[in-house]
């Protein structure tokens, strides 16, 4: 199982600001190991965010996104919203984490 991500959501004036830090190597497929063999690409390719079960943000990432991807987005919401973030990588691994808006 992949490492947990860090999700922080803060409400200000009816807008919830969500910051996500995912833990992933984001291997591009461009690098070579010590013996000169290409390291296969391995990266998060989709991220979906729900607030109280409703989609509020969707991202498709490529291997050009930095290691341990960071995302920041905003949606109209309220304190106490239950935010759930799910990512999937190109090998089919998944991880979901939840946080409450404060």
């Amino acid at each position, binding site marked *: 199982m992949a490492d947990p991500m860090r999700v922080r959501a803060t409400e200000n004036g009816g*807008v919830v600001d969500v910051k996500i830090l995912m833990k992933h190597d984001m291997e*591009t497929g*461009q*690098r*070579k190991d010590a013996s000169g063999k290409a390291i296969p690409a391995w990266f998060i*390719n*989709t991220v979906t965010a729900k607030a109280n079960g409703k*989609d*509020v*943000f*969707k*991202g*498709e*990432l*490529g*291997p*050009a*996104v*930095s*290691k341990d*991807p*960071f*995302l*920041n*987005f*905003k*949606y*109209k919401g309220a304190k106490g919203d239950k935010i759930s973030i799910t990512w*999937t990588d*190109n*090998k*089919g691994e998944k991880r979901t984490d939840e946080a409450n808006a404060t």
Partner: protein
Amino acid sequence: MDHKRRDVLKYSVIFGLMASAGLITTAQAQEWNKAAFEGKSLDDVFKVLGAGKPETSSAITMIAPDIAENGAVVPIGMNTTLKAQQIAILVDKNPSALAAQFFIPAGSEPFVTTRIKMGQTSNVYALVKADNKWNVAVKEVKVTLGGCGG
């Protein structure tokens, strides 16, 4: 007996070819726009996304450094007064131009920031789809240390 062996041989060759041609891939993601992410140049990606020739818009504000010391971690963000439905971030001189794209449902703000890798100094594009029209903003980011390889 010999006949059977040949069959097995034949099939393994066929499957091998299919795998190498990329027809069989393990754990294919369903909703990921593979063609767009494989586009090498800006025009390739614009074509796949159906953006054609996007108009340069001053309504898009890019949040990006003038100089990035480390190309492996370049903070890129954008904000717009347009009613954005879709946002794409492209780097002209990366091996594949498209870095990431985001979908903004109604009720969410047309704002996003993330961190990307850049191989070298390049123009970075924020492509925004609003009211079914594509707009774009450009900013050059100088990279002193590349983020690919090494």
